[in-house]
């Protein structure tokens, strides 16, 4: 069973706009990670935020974490066609395995 729930399930925006995806989870976590998956490059790790962090930036990516609400958001600024992919949040409730959400399918229209 999957722990995370992402919303929206699908998002379509124009190139240059910002895209925001949300993730909710159920159990206590040490960290939360975001992954991108497309047919060309498979599943790729984007960014990790630890449970004692509230916000983290990496290039055009901004991740927030609210442990009181058990939720996280991923913001992609100035979107590009190459950002078209599925995005997954993942948590690690124990020491090893990742538990993924169902993902958000993002489409960037030129």
């Amino acid at each position, binding site marked *: 069973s999957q722990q995370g729930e992402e919303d929206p399930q699908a998002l379509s925006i124009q190139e240059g706009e910002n895209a925001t995806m949300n993730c909710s989870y159920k159990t206590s976590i040490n960290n939360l990670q975001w992954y991108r998956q497309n047919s060309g490059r498979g599943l790729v790790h984007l960014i990790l935020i630890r449970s004692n962090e509230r916000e983290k930036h990496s290039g055009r990516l901004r991740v927030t974490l609210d442990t009181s609400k058990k939720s996280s958001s991923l913001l992609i600024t100035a979107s590009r066609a190459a950002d078209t992919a599925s995005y997954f949040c993942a948590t690690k409730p124990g020491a090893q*395995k990742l538990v*993924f959400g169902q993902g958000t399918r993002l489409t960037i229209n030129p």
Partner: protein
Amino acid sequence: GAGVSQSPRYKVAKRGQDVALRCDPISGHVSLFWYQQALGQGPEFLTYFQNEAQLDKSGLPSDRFFAERPEGSVSTLKIQRTQQEDSAVYLCASSLVGGGGSYNEQFFGPGTRLTVL
């Protein structure tokens, strides 16, 4: 090799056939994971190895699924008597270290897409 590789990339099997999926992790990586990803869903954990030891197989859906990593490097996921519900992408991931660290990045392979007719 630069990353995790998996073979075959695509596999079509008739219902009832046995299949074997191979994963070559990044050289030197201690931990190896298998995940199953159904169409339109996120990956779901199947099993985990630390070197040759299978430490967690709680995600294997039935006793038709079997995984091994005999020499602590290459791993094989075997599915016996395949059923249509086994159709999915099977992802392999490896990470450098094992143990209880809170963050050991997992590097994923491209996956094997299994279609059972």
